[in-house]
């Protein structure tokens, strides 16, 4: 049966399978067996639903009556049903209670269930605090460990003060497994509330010198976090990190830390990341590192995956820190081997590291152009996307058109929302930075809005409109050309039966301001098109306001108010949207006063300063007339005699 096939070992190899469940109570065994044997999702649902019902009963029985083993199993069963998608929150309080058992396994199971079923903001967390504190102070190091693990998953700012001191004390515990977990508990505290560790920097630096390699390894995670925040404060540790890395690669750790003959590879990798952070843009620090990095590259080159993983990380460090020419060449050689490998995982790492080294010097990518082009069209989506990444980093004014074409082609094809967001971001960045001319910029941004309207940022549209309004700032003629180009493109887009909301807004604003430039359509044509557009379906209700605003602006430039515009404004004057009501009401009022309309909506003046008289001087005549007629003068709140204090 498929469940019994050994995970490691020759295909067809079986494990002892049949003995697996012998230690369980009969009904628990049956439950798991049934879950394993069910043939459909519906069958599984039925089994789990019955189990949830049975659990309600089971959990109401105390450990004293059914025995510790069955009580413990009940908690595991709560974990099971939630893992399979059914909420069993009636079980959560029992998990909390289970943590108070003295039997170690029960306690651990209680903590496990709490960490899987609860979360830091859960109301039951406060019930755990006393148990956690007690366990943190226990003389049994396994109880201490259980509590530390629970802290790292469930601690919140409220309970932090109750536990932080105990944990700091545990940094000096005699047992290395406790010290290791205490370091990571502090790591978590800093994540939950940054600044928690500000008084502990010295203590944490000392953990780096712990005689136990695993404890030292754990300290790297905390230190790296602090280094990222304040690199300068830790530059003095560079020699220490270098020395530790050297010792590890020279096999000076116990062999139990080896993985497939590679000494503590994940600790090596962490050290390499730390060095990358400290050596970036810092020649002095980087110079300390070059020798050990050579060493790491040489020794890790063993031809197996974990070796390649270390080589890859080392290459990344080399390209991140202040550069050394020979070391860079060595790194480039490794990258070549990755990129030309048949193995897709290695090729992937090759492309990734190429993207890193290319930022140091573009020449390294040029020699691999063919491979890069191949990867771009590879059927493996992962490889393709990484290559696009590389392309993005290699873009300059010369190849921007080619690269953006590729990115837009992918935007057209993919439906993956995250990928689309990333593509839109990148195309926008490249277009804004390297556009060869304004016309190309507008065409590209139109493609972005059309294809990626759902993921484009509002700021992007804003920038485009600003460009059209303000122009490039140098040449008035070029600016008008840009506007003409925009108007032509946008009036064509208005003929499409559907465009995304963000694009519609851009179209309306542009046509409202500069539609008069259109060689194809006169103003009455434009008004007709815009009025028709009022009746479209929009995802965002505010879009219709943009259309109405455009109608208003264009009508202001016409000799007479078209009937269709009045119809449309009247129709939407009763809209649920107050904003739209206002736009329509304004239009209808202005339509009655053409001279005012022209004054209020000047042409090509979107960038002009608005002069506003906050004293509303133009109303003085109106006010004087009203006072003369006997109206009460205005009294400020303090001046009013019979003020109702509400």
């Amino acid at each position, binding site marked *: 049966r498929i469940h019994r096939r050994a*995970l490691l070992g020759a295909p067809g190899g079986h494990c002892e*399978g049949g003995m*697996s469940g012998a*230690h369980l109570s009969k009904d628990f065994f049956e439950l798991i067996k049934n879950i394993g044997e069910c043939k459909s999702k519906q069958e599984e649902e039925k089994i789990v639903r019955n189990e949830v019902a049975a659990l309600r009963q089971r959990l109401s029985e105390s450990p004293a009556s059914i025995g510790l083993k069955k009580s413990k199993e009940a908690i595991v069963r709560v974990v099971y049903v939630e893992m399979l998608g059914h909420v069993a929150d009636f079980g959560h309080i029992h998990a909390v209670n289970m943590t108070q058992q003295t039997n*170690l396994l029960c306690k651990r199971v209680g903590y496990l269930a709490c960490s899987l079923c609860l979360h830091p903001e859960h109301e039951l967390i406060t019930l755990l605090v006393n148990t956690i504190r007690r366990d943190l102070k226990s003389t049994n190091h396994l109880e201490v460990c259980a509590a530390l693990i629970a802290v790292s998953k469930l601690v919140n700012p409220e309970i932090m003060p109750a536990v932080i001191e105990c944990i700091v004390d545990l940094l000096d515990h005699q047992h290395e497994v406790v010290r290791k977990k205490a370091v*990571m508990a502090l790591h978590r505290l800093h994540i939950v509330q940054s600044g928690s560790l500000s008084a502990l920097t010295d203590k944490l630096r000392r953990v780096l010198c712990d005689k136990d390699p695993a404890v030292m390894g754990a300290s790297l*995670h905390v230190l790296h976090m602090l280094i990222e925040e304040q690199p300068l404060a830790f530059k003095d540790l560079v020699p220490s990190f270098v020395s530790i890395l050297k010792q590890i690669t020279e096999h000076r750790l116990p062999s139990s830390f080896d993985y497939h003959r590679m000494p503590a590879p994940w600790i090596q990798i962490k050290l390499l990341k730390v060095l990358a952070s400290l050596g970036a843009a810092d020649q002095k620090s980087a110079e300390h590192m070059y020798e050990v990095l050579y060493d790491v590259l040489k020794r890790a080159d063993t031809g197996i995956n974990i070796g390649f*993983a270390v080589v890859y990380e080392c290459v990344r460090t080399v390209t991140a820190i202040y550069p050394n020419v020979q070391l860079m060449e060595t790194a480039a050689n490794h990258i070549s081997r990755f990129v030309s490998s048949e193995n897709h995982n290695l090729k992937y790492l090759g492309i990734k590291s190429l993207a890193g080294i290319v930022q140091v010097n573009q020449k390294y990518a040029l020699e691999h152009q063919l491979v890069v082009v191949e990867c771009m069209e590879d059927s493996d989506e992962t490889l393709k996307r990484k290559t696009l990444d590389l392309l993005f980093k290699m873009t300059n004014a010369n190849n921007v058109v080619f690269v953006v074409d590729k990115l837009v082609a992918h935007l057209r094809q993919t439906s993956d929302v995250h990928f689309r967001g990333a593509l839109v971001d990148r195309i926008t960045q490249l277009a804004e930075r390297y556009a060869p001319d304004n016309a190309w910029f507008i065409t590209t941004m139109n493609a972005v809005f059309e294809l990626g309207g759902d993921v484009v940022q509002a700021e992007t549209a804003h920038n485009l409109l600003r460009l059209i309004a303000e122009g490039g700032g140098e040449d008035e003629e070029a600016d008008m050309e840009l506007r003409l180009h925009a108007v032509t493109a946008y009036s064509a887009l208005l003929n499409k039966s559907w465009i995304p909301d963000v694009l519609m807004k851009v179209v309306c*604003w542009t046509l409202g301001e500069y539609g008069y430039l259109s060689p194809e359509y006169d103003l009455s044509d434009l008004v007709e098109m815009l009025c028709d557009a009022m009746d479209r379906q929009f995802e965002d209700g505010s879009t219709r306001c943009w259309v109405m605003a455009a109608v208003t602006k264009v009508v202001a430039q016409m000799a007479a108010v078209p009937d269709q515009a009045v119809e449309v404004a009247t129709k939407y004057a009763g809209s649920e949207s107050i904003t739209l009501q206002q736009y329509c009401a304004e239009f209808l009022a202005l339509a009655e006063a053409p001279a005012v309309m022209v004054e209020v909506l000047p042409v090509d003046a979107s960038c002009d300063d608005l002069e506003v008289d906050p004293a509303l001087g133009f109303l003085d005549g109106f006010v004087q007339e009203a006072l003369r007629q006997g109206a009460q003068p205005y009294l400020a709140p303090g001046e009013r005699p019979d003020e109702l204090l509400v």
Partner: protein
Amino acid sequence: RPRHRAPVNSICLPEAGSAHPTRAMTIRFVLMVNKQGQTRLAQYMNMHNIEERCALESEVIRKCLSRNETQCSFFEFRGYKVVYRRYASLFFIVGVEGDDENELAILEFIHALVETLDRYFENVCELDIMFNLEKAHFVLDEMVMNGCIIETNKNNILAPIHLLDKASGM
């Protein structure tokens, strides 16, 4: 130069993204899911809603199943980088945050996890994990904390668990 006036219906600029300290927890989820899409073990760093988790699990296993042997063991998924490997009937799936992670190191971590389970359960199979769910979690909890790989030395990982087994007599 005339001061720029924002267009009608001024668009609010989005807030600049700030680096969130949770970036330090690179591993975001560890899953063991079989070919039929049944979850055998699930741990998450930051996702608490059961429905969300189940939806993620079924989607990610579908994606793993759609890939073939020659393709990368990594793919992008909902903003995560997913590293996966199949061992007999079981897929081991790790979701990682951000682009800085060393995917091959994660792939080998998965292998180290399987090797450790294999040592503890003596020739581990899917059934062992099903019948000993809490033990499988304990092993993982010794190896990963806060989304960081903290222990891969098998002696160190299994010593506390063996002690636990002895002390509890269950």
